[in-house]
């Protein structure tokens, strides 16, 4: 991990919207094809989900990868070997 996730520029837009990326899949629960991928806050912390928009069934969920830029801040030392002091 580098320092790319530490300091950002303030966005230029007046209002901010999340972008939900359409995914080519079918919900195993309700059969809908309205499936999207987007970042969320889960009760265990930040995650990325692929989720049916019709019934909110989660097809998959994972802790965000570095290039998914979520959560916005990630420490530069992520992935380093940990010492006794942290």
């Amino acid at each position, binding site marked *: 991990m580098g320092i790319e996730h530490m300091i950002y520029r303030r966005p230029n837009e007046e*209002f*901010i*919207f999340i972008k939900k990326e359409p995914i080519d899949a079918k919900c195993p629960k309700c059969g809908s094809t309205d499936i999207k991928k987007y970042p*969320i*806050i889960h009760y265990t*912390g930040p995650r990325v989900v692929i989720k049916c928009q019709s019934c*909110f069934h989660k097809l998959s969920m994972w802790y965000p990868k570095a290039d998914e830029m979520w959560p*916005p801040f990630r420490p530069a030392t992520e992935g380093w070997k940990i010492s*006794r*002091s942290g």
Partner: protein
Amino acid sequence: MDRYFISADDVKKTYDIDIVTAESIRNGLIQITRQMQVTLVRGALTPYVRDMMDMATCIHRLTEEGSELIAITEGCVQHAFTQGPLVSHILREWGVENFQEGDVVFTNDSFRGSLHFCDVNCVRLCFWEGKPVFVLSDTSHIADMGGNTAGGVTPGATVYFQEGIRVPPMLLYANDIPVRSTFNLLLENCRTPYLNLGDLRALYGTLSIGERLLHSLIKRWGLDNVLAAARYTLDHAERKARSALSEIPDGIYEATEFLDDDGIEDKPVKIHCAISIRGDNAEIDFSGSAVQCLGYIGSGWADAFRCALGIKLFIDPGTPMNSGFLRPFDAIVPPGSVVCKLPPGSIAEHSQLGNRTVSAAARALSLALPERGFADESATLTSTHFEGFDDRHGKGNPFTTGIITPAGWGATYKSDGVSYCAVAIANCYDYIVEFLEQEYPLVVLEREFVIDSGGPGKYRGGLATYVTLLALADQEFNLWAENYRGAALGVHGGGNGKPGYTTFIEGTDPTNLPTWEGITPSKYFKPFCGTFDKDKRPDPINGKYGLGCISWSDKSIRVRFPKGAIFRTVVPGAGGYGNPLERDADKVAQDVRNRFVSVAAAEESYGVIIDPCSLQINKEATASKRKELSEKQAKGEWQVSVAHHPVYPLETLDEIVEIKESRR
């Protein structure tokens, strides 16, 4: 039968313990957090914890994903919705395998899920027979973490570097031995090392006590039973949440709130909240909210679930909170918006934002369940922070302290709003006047309700409060407040609460202030911030925000407060519910007798005519007046007003009709 219902036999089959044991342990876990709370409150030195209960103590269950909050004490409520994701996130970064017995990890980082820098968090694993089995955490608001101004909430800050020191997860104790370098870092970068040292030790001691008590519980019931009961506790809360959600029709419910401003730009800040329900699942989406402020208002991602308090108040207020309640929810906080600021944006003032996200979530849900709605609370934890040198006889030290001013809660579908209560996310006690006056060069001259401040309605909004302070030494204060420009909204025909304002009182004897139920003649004050008319009357109907005021913003920094000066903060009132013309006339009369509503406002806002001497209802005149107003209302010629003072004196209190008449 509710499909979420679970019988005693089901409990046995699912968790392999009987329901009596499960419930005993469930309540035992909560009781441990209460014992931890007592330890923390008694051990802490800062008034925020010692007197105001701005803290929380928690037990979490370890999972493959991190952790889940099982139990939390009564205290500062917002932590019940933020500690779970925060601690889970910290454990992921630190690594559960890197904890040793007696280790305590400390962090205050808002960009890792905490609130603002003065809300510090400690995490300790509970080990049993050498293995980690539970997680203990506590959080408290400590007095100062450095930064531009005392108290860590820095009006005028634009980047977090100005707020204080940001501490990533660090070892505070290693094997129960204090880590000197961490303590030195924390104590040498704050204005109040004498308070912070005591508080850090109290935070550590609380976790130690918690571990000891958890060991007792495990010893009594057996580890397997306690782990099973923890799962039962979480599933129980989840079942209750899902059962309640399943009763709400599928759909999207949206609401918008506005912060007055961010202290830098003179414009309201929009918060948009959409709650989508699909069966017994829900998604909270803040898309469409304003870009992150230039100023210090905002949060990291903690507001994702802090707003869920507004939902829980609606759908399941009774079940003790834990992560199980949050399992049906996902939250979307767009990065770069006011609810998910990108570093290095300042997040010093998170509480005003949190109040609004709760209001927005509650109002969105009230669209789905109008018969169970409630109006906006005052939506401000109006806080004033003081800093200076205490040169009173026998003193001789720098000081910093802060006060909050509780206000009203919104009226509900079945009752008037509570008055004199800290906002929903806080649930804190008020400061203790005697302690404040003893420890700091301040005198609380007045602390009372404000008449005519609760939003009119069939059920009246909670009242505003005012506090008047006298400085006994030269000092400065920072003020942060909300709903001075806006107002707490009424619902379903109820009126808005009275906006707040702040003034300097002058030209009068501090031992005999000319005040009646929060009203002081305009002659005796200088407006600091709020909505005033050209005669300096606080008037939300005919006044203009900022007119004649020293400050254009209700977020002010380093305001001179010299010895002998008097300043007053009037916090906003809360919104009303329902048509005030339908309010029981006897209740209006009772409000008049209690001086919650004036005789003039009883007539103007409620159509109830009350004799100013006997304070009895004139029933004929009331019936006639209410008929007249109802007809006008139906034609659109009369509408419920925002709470205000129908009569406001310019020169003397004698101008207030009620007082004149009552002296006959």
